[in-house]
């Protein structure tokens, strides 16, 4: 029976979070988001010219996200540089999780580039990347309906736990771990990212969404503080 978490956290306790904006001066907007030992950096450039031209949308700007892990950020072996199918997938879901809050109709034909780099990983990297990206977009002054906050919820045996770390992700029991990254707009609780690795019942999943919302609210408070801190006199 899964009774205790390796780092002693309660089942509904997320790791320590830290956020900062405006950390990359040349970018139009930027942010660092850390949850536990996972550190994500995000920078926004745009609206700017989009090449190749056939990608341009004449009615609105498009969002283009690029997620990358630094070669020394993995928890064991070196990460081969140059991206992978996994990083391509995460780039796409990052875009999908942010598009619902953005209105890029003021920038027809242009692109808004968001770059996410993982400096150190201890599970939850895609969610950390999304939190950092949302902050960077807000820092850049883009109109957004809401921020986006994201967290991974897990099922380990019969327990639902929030914010899995790497040790929990690797829990060596077949079929007994499910990893569910969730991103949402904190004000309304509307979901912009939902994925699952593993097996869950419908009831468990509905509970997962509740747990995710509570965690995202806590994350949102830190994100909000980071944005306001930059401009306090």
């Amino acid at each position, binding site marked *: 029976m899964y009774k205790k978490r390796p780092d002693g956290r309660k089942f509904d306790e997320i790791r320590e979070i830290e956020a900062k904006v405006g950390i990359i001066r040349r970018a*139009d*907007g930027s942010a660092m988001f850390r949850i536990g030992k996972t550190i994500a950096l995000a920078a926004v450039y*745009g*609206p*700017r*010219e*989009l090449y190749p031209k056939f990608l341009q949308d*004449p009615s609105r*700007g498009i969002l283009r996200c690029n997620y990358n892990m630094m070669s020394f950020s993995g928890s064991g072996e070196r990460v081969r540089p140059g991206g992978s199918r996994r990083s391509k997938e995460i780039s796409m879901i990052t875009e999908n999780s942010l598009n619902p*809050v953005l*209105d890029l109709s*003021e*920038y*027809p*034909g*242009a*692109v808004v580039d968001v770059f996410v780099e993982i400096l150190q990983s201890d599970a939850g990297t895609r969610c950390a990347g999304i939190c950092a990206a949302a902050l960077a977009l*807000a*820092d*850049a*002054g*883009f*109109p*957004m*309906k*809401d*921020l986006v906050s994201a967290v991974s919820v897990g099922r380990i045996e019969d327990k639902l736990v929030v914010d899995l770390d790497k040790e929990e992700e690797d829990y060596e029991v077949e079929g007994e771990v499910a990893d569910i990254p969730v991103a949402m*707009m*904190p*004000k309304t609780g509307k979901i912009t990212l939902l994925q699952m690795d593993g097996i869950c019942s419908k009831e468990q999943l509905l509970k997962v969404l509740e747990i995710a919302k509570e965690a995202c609210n806590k994350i949102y408070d830190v*994100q*909000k503080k980071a*944005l*306001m801190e930059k*401009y*306090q*006199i």
Partner: protein
Amino acid sequence: MGELLIKDKDIVIPGQELATGMDFLPATGTYRDSDKIIATQLGSVSINGRLIKIIPLNGRYIPKRGDTVIGKIKDMNFSNWFVDIGYANDAVLSSKEISVDYIERGTDISQYYDLGDLIVAKIYNVSKQKLIDLTMRGPGLRKLSEGRIIKVSSVKVPRVIGKEGSMISMVKELTNCKIMVGQNGLIWINGENGTNELVAVEAIEMIAEKTQTSNLTEKVKEFLEKRMQGMKENVQEKA
């Protein structure tokens, strides 16, 4: 019926609720969602009667008709120049818009403006597709000569210029520098020497950073006077 959830000049983030009820009206940077008014941008609140708007604290330049901007010639064809004004699309300057004289077809237009030149131009049209047309016909519009260029966020430009140009005039006077501020956030500075220019740069960066401070004009004046005095003393010491 209605309730304000924030005060004038508060800093708010996207998605933050500003007011409830139907009493208040959403202006730029806000929208209404059933009975709530919600912010869409990171910025400071400005309440004017029943109107609530957000003054953004950051943001790329959005070209507007009538803006005077500083741009760089990036490309040209037989009769047009393509100018980078810091927006996603290049702006277009037609050879018909550069002087009152008639320029014959087939003239090599690079004799007027060449690649890499910096110009002060005015936006006379922005189409729905954000195609931007520039003109050089008008007072003060010209090719820029030697000088340095710094960049501030375009949302800070009004503060840098000040009411009726008072802030930037003060910087010009006290540092003895020629300064031209483009609405797109590009600023050209040419002083009698590099150290004067650096003081002007510092002053402008200070204004851009501390837009929220009260008595900013006083503080900037103090800073300028102190630095310029310090420089005079340095020069006298050396002599």
